[in-house]
């Protein structure tokens, strides 16, 4: 029966592919839709990736994730707090307007407006100044090593278009102002936006006047969001789609077994880990000393987690176990830090006894159930492993909508979190948001009381260190301290898995962006 289904699916896929809309169309689907076409009105990875087809940044990520020139051809620091960018000449926006320094200044100004949701993505920049038509200075709040990383996610809009449509200032959800930029997009990118229907589909056509030499042969993109996993897979198998990204883990084997399709997968940057309440008392046991403050207890909990079992059974062998808090491609990663503690329930029990908890204790573990791949199942497995060494763990899972606000307020004893270091793709984001205490712009997601004077010092030094090797050494050292003190309990890098019909070649990137300007279709 299965073989019949497969044959029929392959046959219908072939027929549909042959009758697909013209040459070199890519029809693809993801579970979410573009939030808005206004690049400064959102902070979602997916929307940013989609808009990258229409807009160009000054600096972009290339084929191997390296930072390379895009709308800026070169740059240098003329003062510790001032960067000078030479701009590319002869670039045209999709409406025919020329790209000049005025567009960069207007774009940066619009992004820095208090109403712009994405303002934080360029938080260290004070202003942009035009030097001449093709030279721009960006002034930062002091020396800032990650400016280029930030700029890779900042798209340049057309000043004249913003003036015409009255969208020089961004929309503002607090005051209820919305602008034309939410529903139209004019950029300089490899594709032009043709239509945008929320939840129904977005179409783009190739931009023949793109400034760069295309490495793709795609003439048309038809994006259709499909929220339901099963429907998305069905639509691929029935030949209505050429690519689905992501593909659900549980269906990879079935899709891969069908010769008309292929599965592409690799570890992503998103690192899943557990966090601990390290304040004076547990929420589960007020009035008593918090066992999680003891290093030996945290080490015991780490040793008690059988990472291989989770990797094999829960993640179907698709994840990559890790002993540190950043993924290998991210600056700040060091092989010496990426050492697994080695699973041993006996050693874990001994450590608990040494810490003065021979009988264990009660602990709550909170997790989202709709945010990370198999998040709920991972937590259930971890709870069983902890219970085995005497730490009676009660799992509570809930939807992301209610989970993250609670996590933000520090309402959990043990909890799950994932971190991808995006958009900057730099280890500094782990130090500045997770490993430092919440004050003066640091510790934005660290509401559970972890703090270490050495890490605080190293983070603040790395923040202004323009010498890259030195800066990386500082981050590596800070991440080593984090590992030695078990600030968090790292689990794995979750996989990014896509599925496509044969004949569609799309390179995969660990940041999970679909970049169709690298796609080849037959």
């Amino acid at each position, binding site marked *: 029966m299965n073989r019949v*289904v497969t044959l*029929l*699916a392959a046959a*219908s896929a072939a*027929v*549909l592919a042959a009758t697909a809309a013209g040459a070199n169309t890519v029809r693809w689907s993801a579970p979410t839709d573009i*939030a808005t076409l206004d690049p400064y*009105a*959102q*902070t979602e990875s997916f929307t940013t990736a989609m808009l990258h087809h229409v807009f160009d940044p000054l600096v972009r990520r290339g084929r191997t994730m390296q930072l390379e020139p895009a709308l800026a051809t070169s740059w240098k620091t003329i003062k510790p707090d001032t960067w000078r960018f030479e701009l590319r000449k002869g670039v045209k926006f999709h409406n025919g307007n020329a790209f000049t320094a005025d567009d960069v200044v207007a774009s940066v100004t619009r992004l820095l407006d208090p109403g712009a*949701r*994405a303002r*934080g*993505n360029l*938080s260290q920049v004070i202003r942009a100044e035009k030097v001449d038509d093709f030279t721009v200075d960006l002034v930062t709040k002091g020396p800032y090593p990650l400016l280029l990383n930030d700029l890779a996610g900042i798209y340049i809009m057309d000043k004249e278009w913003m003036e015409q449509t009255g969208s020089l200032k961004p*929309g*503002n*959800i*607090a005051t209820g*102002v*919305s*602008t034309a930029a*939410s529903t139209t997009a004019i950029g300089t990118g490899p594709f032009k936006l043709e239509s945008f229907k*929320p*939840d*129904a589909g977005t179409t783009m056509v190739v931009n023949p006047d793109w400034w760069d030499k295309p490495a793709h042969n795609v003439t048309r993109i038809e994006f*259709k*969001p*499909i*929220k*339901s996993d*099963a*429907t*998305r897979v*069905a*639509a691929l198998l*029935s030949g209505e789609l050429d690519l689905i990204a992501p593909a659900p883990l549980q269906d990879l084997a079935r899709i891969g077994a069908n010769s008309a399709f292929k599965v592409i997968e690799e570890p992503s940057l998103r690192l899943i880990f557990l966090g601990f309440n390290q304040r004076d008392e547990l929420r589960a046991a007020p009035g008593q000393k918090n066992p999680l403050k003891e290093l030996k207890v945290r080490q015991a909990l780490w040793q008690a987690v059988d990472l291989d079992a989770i990797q094999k059974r829960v993640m179907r062998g698709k994840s990559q176990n890790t002993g540190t808090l950043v993924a290998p491609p991210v600056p700040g990663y060091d092989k010496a830090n990426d050492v697994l503690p080695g699973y041993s329930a006996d050693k874990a029990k001994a450590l608990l006894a040494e810490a003065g908890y021979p009988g264990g204790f009660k602990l709550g573990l909170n997790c989202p159930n*709709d945010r990370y791949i198999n998040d709920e199942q991972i937590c259930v497995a971890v709870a069983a492993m902890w219970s085995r060494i005497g730490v009676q763990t009660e799992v509570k899972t809930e*939807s*992301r*909508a*209610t*989970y*993250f*606000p609670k996590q*933000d307020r520090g309402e959990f004893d043990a909890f799950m979190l994932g*971190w991808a*270091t*995006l*958009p*900057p793709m730099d280890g500094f*984001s782990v130090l500045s*948001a997770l490993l430092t205490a*919440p*004050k003066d*712009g*640091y*510790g*934005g*997601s660290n509401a559970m009381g972890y703090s270490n004077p050495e890490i605080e010092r190293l983070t603040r030094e790395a923040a202004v260190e323009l010498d890259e090797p030195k800066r990386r050494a500082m981050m590596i050292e800070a991440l080593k301290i984090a590992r030695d003190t078990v600030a968090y309990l790292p689990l794995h890098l979750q996989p990014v898995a896509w599925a496509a019909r044969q004949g569609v070649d799309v390179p995969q990137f660990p940041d999970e962006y679909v970049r169709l300007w690298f796609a080849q279709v037959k």
Partner: protein
Amino acid sequence: MLRLLIARLGQAVLVMLAVSAVSFGMFRFVGDPVSALSRENATVEEKQELREALGLERPIIVQFGAFIGRIVRGDFGISYRNQRPVAALIAERLPATLELVLVATVLSLVLGIPLGVLCALKPDGVAARLVQAVSLIGISTPTFVTGIVLILTFAVTLGLLPSFGRGETVQIGPWSTGLLTVSGLKALILPSITLALYQLTLIMRLVRSELIDVLSSDYIRFARARGLSARHIHFTLALRNALMPVITVTGLQIGSLIAFAIVTETVFQWPGMGLLFIQAVSFSDVPVMAAYLLFVGLLFVLINTAVDLLYALVDPRLRVRS
């Protein structure tokens, strides 16, 4: 009559206030939009600033007052997630949902009434028993299972129908319709069957029981005694009376269908209001959720009020009671 009308409208306003209060109270438990709207690296200061800008720091009763104030002025605010006016978002999604509900309703009537009649006239026949058994399955299968099974059968295995979306739509002023293109009509088939299934079985069973009741009443017996043809008795005299409650139920069901199209719309990625609502829930997009709930509440209030008033027109006894 006028007094009744005023009383009913007064009740409707009260119900709407209650709906908005309940939905507003609910948002305190569905999460706080700040984390959904913040970047991964957002600082504590950034989040606090946004919280204050959105007025989430004010006492809940003050927020509710401001909310009602805006609604009364006809301002539903803008979506947190995509910064477009909520009224425009709902207007954009309404046609998809209404077309789906309309087709599903027609389908359930066209199939439900004849099947109900069949079961009533030949209650012991093989066909009737079969229909009864199948209807049990129809009423007890969850919507998403029905939807996925239909997709696997007709889209993946047979490759006959699209598995998701609306196909090509035609824009007529503010209305987008899928009824005028072949791909639009094809796209309607599976989701409307999925949505209609429950209602179909409901109508079928209702017609059957009403018709059995009517057929055993005195005037039918007299009609038989007068020697009228069976066809005339069944389809002209009996069915007419048996269909009265069906009309009522169908009317009331339309409200439920619009509200419960959520699952069907999610399975088939049908870009209607239900899908809009589900997306809004996962992003804590409070303005969209609030407007949707108010809209659905209004729909129910309108339909119920209309039904009440119609009954009062038809049946004088009810007027005295009110």
